[in-house]
C-alpha cells in the first residue's frame, strides 16, 4: 500500500510526462476497444440484413450466389424457378408464407425486382418490416416502389415517371420506352440493399417485357422462355417462412432433392454467417493494427520511464539509504508502469463509451449501424488485462536498469 502511494505520487511528480504517456496508451486502447465495438455493430447489422425468412430458394447453384443475388442485389442469379414449382412449394403444408422474387432488370445501375404485396408484409430486416417514407406499395403493373438511395440519387419522388432498361448494367442499351412506370412510394431507409433497389409487381415486370416484345425492342439478358399466353413467367427465387421453425431443415432437404426442378434452398442466417467469415477477415487486419498501436503506446511508456531514470538516481540513492532494497526499487518502477497502463487503459475504455454515448444516434441515423453501450464484454476485459499486464511486464526493463545503476551507484550517484 505504501509502495503504491509512493509510485502514484512519483508519477504525479512527473505529471506532464505521465499524462502524455497514459494518454497515448488511452488512445491506443480506445482504438482497440472502439474497433471491437464497431466490428460487433457491423456484424450485428450485417446479420440483420434479413430476418424472419426461414429459407431462400433459387435455381440449383451456389449457396452464396443465391444469397448475393436475392438479398444483396449483387452477382447474377443461378437461373430461374418456374411458376409451377413456386406454386407447388407455396402450397406445401409446412410453408406459412412466400415472397416471389423476379430479378433481372436494372434502372441506371439499380436492380428492379418484381414481387408481390407479400414482400411488404413478410420481409424483415433487423426485426423491422419494410415501410414507406411516402406513398405506398405498387398496386398495378404501371406502378413501382423505390428504395431511399434510388430516390435520393436519381431525384425521384412519388409520381415520378421511370423508364426501365433491360440487363443489369448502368449503361442501358434498350430502354423499355413502351412501358414507363410511375413511382407509387418511396421506401423508408433500411440501411440494407433494399435502399438501392426498385420494386414493381410481377405483372409490371411481365407487362414491360410483353410490351417491348410487341414494339420490337432490343433484348439483352436471358432469352424469353416460351410460354402459353396467360401462363405466369418464371421467377428468380422465392423467400419463405415456415409454420414451425423446426421444420425448416426438413423442408430445406426436401427442396434440395426436388425431382421436378433442381433447386437450392438456403438458410439465410447460416449463409450470412458464412459470407461474413469470408469478408469479415478484414477485421483481423484491423485488430492487428490496433494491437500494434497498443504496442507503440507501451514502447512510448518504456521510453518515458527510461528517460526519467537518469534524473531519479538521487531518489534511488535516498531510498537505498533509508533501507530500501533493490527489490523495492524494482517493484516501485514496475508498479509505476503498471499504474500508467491501468490508468491509460481505463481512460481508453471510458473514451470509447463516452464516444459511443455521444455519437450512437448520429451513427445509427447516418449508417444504420447500431452501436450498443453494453457492459464490458469478455473481449474488453481481455484487452484491458492484456494491456495492464503487458504494461507491468515492460516496466521490468527500466526497473532492471534502475536496479543495476542503484547497485553500481551505492549511495553516491554521479550526477
Amino acid at each position, binding site marked *: 500500500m*505504501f509502495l503504491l502511494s*509512493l509510485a502514484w*505520487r*512519483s508519477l*504525479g*511528480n512527473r505529471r506532464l510526462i505521465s499524462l502524455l504517456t497514459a494518454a497515448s496508451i488511452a488512445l491506443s486502447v480506445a482504438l482497440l476497444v472502439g474497433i471491437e465495438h464497431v466490428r460487433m455493430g457491423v456484424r450485428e447489422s450485417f446479420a440483420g440484413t434479413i430476418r424472419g425468412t426461414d429459407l431462400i430458394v433459387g435455381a440449383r447453384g451456389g449457396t452464396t450466389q443465391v444469397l448475393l443475388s436475392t438479398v444483396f442485389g449483387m452477382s447474377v442469379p443461378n437461373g430461374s424457378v418456374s411458376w409451377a414449382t413456386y406454386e407447388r412449394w407455396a402450397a406445401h403444408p409446412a410453408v406459412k408464407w412466400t415472397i416471389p422474387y423476379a430479378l433481372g432488370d436494372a434502372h441506371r445501375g439499380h436492380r428492379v425486382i418484381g414481387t408481390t404485396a407479400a414482400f411488404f408484409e413478410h420481409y424483415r430486416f433487423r426485426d423491422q418490416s419494410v415501410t414507406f417514407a411516402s406513398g405506398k406499395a405498387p398496386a398495378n403493373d404501371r406502378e413501382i416502389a423505390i428504395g431511399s438511395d434510388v430516390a435520393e440519387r436519381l431525384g425521384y419522388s412519388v409520381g415520378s415517371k421511370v423508364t426501365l432498361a433491360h440487363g443489369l448494367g448502368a449503361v442501358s442499351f434498350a430502354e423499355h420506352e413502351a412501358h414507363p412506370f410511375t413511382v407509387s412510394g418511396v421506401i423508408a431507409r433500411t440501411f440494407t440493399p433494399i435502399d438501392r433497389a426498385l420494386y414493381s409487381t410481377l405483372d409490371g415486370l411481365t407487362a414491360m417485357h410483353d410490351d417491348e416484345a410487341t414494339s420490337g425492342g432490343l433484348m439483352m439478358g436471358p432469352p424469353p422462355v416460351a410460354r402459353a399466353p396467360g401462363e405466369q413467367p418464371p421467377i428468380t427465387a422465392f423467400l419463405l417462412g415456415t409454420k414451425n421453425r423446426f421444420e425448416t431443415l426438413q423442408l430445406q432437404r426436401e427442396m434440395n432433392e426436388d425431382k421436378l426442378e433442381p433447386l437450392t434452398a438456403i438458410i439465410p442466417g447460416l449463409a450470412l454467417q458464412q459470407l461474413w467469415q469470408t469478408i469479415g477477415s478484414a477485421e483481423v487486419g484491423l485488430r492487428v493494427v490496433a494491437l500494434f498501436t497498443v504496442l507503440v503506446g507501451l514502447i512510448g511508456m518504456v521510453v518515458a520511464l527510461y528517460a526519467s531514470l537518469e534524473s531519479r538516481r*538521487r*531518489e534511488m*540513492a*535516498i*531510498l*537505498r*539509504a*533509508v*533501507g*530500501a*532494497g*533493490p*527489490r*523495492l526499487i524494482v517493484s516501485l518502477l514496475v508498479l509505476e508502469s503498471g499504474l500508467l497502463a491501468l490508468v491509460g487503459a481505463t481512460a481508453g475504455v471510458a473514451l470509447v463509451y463516452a464516444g459511443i454515448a455521444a455519437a450512437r444516434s448520429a451513427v445509427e441515423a447516418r449508417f444504420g449501424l447500431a452501436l450498443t453501450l453494453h457492459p464490458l464484454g469478455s473481449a474488453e476485459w481481455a484487452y484491458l488485462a492484456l494491456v495492464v499486464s503487458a504494461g507491468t511486464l515492460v516496466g521490468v526493463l527500466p526497473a532492471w536498469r534502475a536496479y543495476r545503476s542503484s547497485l*553500481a551507484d*551505492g*549511495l*553516491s550517484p554521479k550526477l
Partner: protein
Amino acid sequence: MSSATAGAAGTSSPAVELRDIRFAYKGGRDVIDLPALTIGQGERCFLHGPSGSGKTTLLGLLAGVLVPRTGTVRVLGTTLSGLTSGARDRFRAEHLGYVFQMFNLIPYLSVRENITLPCRLSPARRARLKGADVGAEAAHLAERLEIAELLDKPVTALSVGQQQRVGVARALIGAPGLVVCDEPTSALDSDRRDRFLELLFARCEEAGSALVFVSHDLSLAARFQRTVELPELNKAAVREMVG
C-alpha cells in the same frame, strides 16, 4: 527477531568495527585498504580526508550498501559482511541514519513523509518509537530541529539549510544506533553550519546514537570528541596520492 537485532542489542560492542577492509569498485583498483578502525557507542567521530580519498565509499561500507572485497565490517555488533543483501537492507533501515551532502529528500513527498520514511520501510524501527506514533515523533524531531512550521510543506519550498535539517530528522527518527553524515554542511554558510552542528549533536546525544561525520573541512574537527584522518588509515588513498 533477526540476528541483526540481537547483535545490536548488545551494549558492549562498539558502534563501528572495521578489520582489514579492502574495497574496489567494479573493474577498478582498491579505493579502500583499511587495516582497522573502531568507533565507540555514542561517540562523535569526525572523519577527515580530501576529496576522492574514499570517505563516501567508506560510509557506503558502513551502511552495508557496499560490500568489501575482504575483511569484516561490524556495525553495532552485527557483522554486515556475513549478511545477505536483503538482511543488510533491513539492518540499515532499522539501525542506521544517513544524511547526504545535499538533495536529501524525495521530491514528491512532503517534509513529514520524508521524515517518517524509515519507519514506513522498517516495522522494527517503527516499533522502537517508545509509545509515540510516527507522526508525533516526526513533529517532536521537527520541533527540536526548528523546522516544525515546515512539516506539511512540499520539500521543493525549502532552503538548503532547511533541507539538511529535514535530512537529520529523518536520520534520527526511531533513535538509530549509528548516524552517518556525508559532508552535510558543505552547502551551508558558516552561521548556519554552526547551528546545524549544534542541533545535530544535541539530537544524537538525546537518541544515544554514535555519529560518524565526514568532511574535508578540518575547521569542524574541534567540535568532535575524536578526529580520524582517513588518508593516514587508508593505504589505498596513500598509494594513489604517491603514485
